[in-house]
């Protein structure tokens, strides 16, 4: 049987109560895995390379301090230990908590919450290149302060060499992982209470 990454990360096997529960939403289960496969086993790597996918994935999940980061760390370690080392040394300076950021000016401005606008260091840019470094900055924004998103943030990606299609895939990648790691967190808590 094909691997289901969420089941593996939560520690669910056939016969468990949680396995039966997930089977009651079979399309959600199958397509959460199909989403993972579309991002990490794509036959279309022209706009986003496999290494870029793995590096952004590890960065996105590690930023949230999710235990699921282990899985992506292993994948990146196998593909590029140098990239993993560069990301791991940048991680302590990038981890924070969210969501924070600003609302469009108006009645919600009272709810604006300040927080860091993380940018890659010169050292990190030198290690991973400006293209991946720009993606890491965008990943930080999407992870912690999605409401600060802007046309300017996308222009920074275009200027760093990302195509329109590449930005769509990058955005899906980070957004999907923010779903997956929350399903893992939620089901892990539920499993402990079954």
């Amino acid at each position, binding site marked *: 049987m094909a691997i289901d990454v969420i089941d593996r990360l939560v520690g669910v096997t056939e016969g468990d109560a949680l396995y039966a529960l997930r089977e009651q939403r*079979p399309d959600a289960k199958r397509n959460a895995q199909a989403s993972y496969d579309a991002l990490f086993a794509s036959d279309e790597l022209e706009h986003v390379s496999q290494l870029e996918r793995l590096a952004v994935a590890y960065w996105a999940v590690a930023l949230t301090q999710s235990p699921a980061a282990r899985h992506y760390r292993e994948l990146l370690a196998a593909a590029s230990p140098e990239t993993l080392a560069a990301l791991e040394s940048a991680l302590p300076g990038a981890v924070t908590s969210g969501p924070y950021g600003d609302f469009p000016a108006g009645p919600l401005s009272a709810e604006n919450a300040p927080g860091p606008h993380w940018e890659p260091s010169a050292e990190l840019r030198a290690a991973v290149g400006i293209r991946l470094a720009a993606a890491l900055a965008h990943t930080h924004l999407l992870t912690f302060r999605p409401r600060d998103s802007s046309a300017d943030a996308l222009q920074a990606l275009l200027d760093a060499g990302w195509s*329109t299609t590449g930005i769509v895939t990058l955005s899906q990648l980070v*957004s999907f992982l923010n779903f997956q790691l*929350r399903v893992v967190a939620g089901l892990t808590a539920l499993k402990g209470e079954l």
Partner: protein
Amino acid sequence: MSQQVIRHDFDAPNAFTQELLGWEAWLEPLPEEELTERHYDGLVDRRRAANPYFRLLVRDPDILGARTRTDNDIFYNEKGGLPRALRELAATSASRTNGCIYCASVHSRFASHHSKRPDDVQRLLDEGTAAEQSDPQWRAVIDASVALTETPVAFGAEHVRQLREAGLDDLAIADAIHGAAFFNWANRLMLSLGEPTPPQG
């Protein structure tokens, strides 16, 4: 010179609302005449070709198709589990927390439609997720959705117990988890690839 984003000169909405908003992309959607069968499979519903959000996302058709099929089962599979109104409440709570005015407008409307309690929904939009809700199931679903939306994720055993004590079964609790988690996917796409347009008329 690199490619340029699309900039709009309308004033995007600056408050949460149940009104009907539009949405415009900052990047060029795929022109309709370039859509292939693989793209239509990614759109799932062919009518979505008319929508700029889906026609931008369809540039990567495989992940869009899997995303949409995940979404549909979480929100529309009504074989037991969480009532539709509460699934929409989970979506609205996540969107209110992340700050996605567009997503919150759509799903607060759905929550009002299914619950017939538009004032309770509007209070969540106006005053926030901490605003009073007297219904223990609403309180539990909102609290669980907010905890799941925080980074690092703050959802734990106490949220499972609160949902259960409010009378929700395990499938309903799993639905609440998936509904809030899914909007942490959807909010990030909607917020980062374009912006909402003002209500019509």
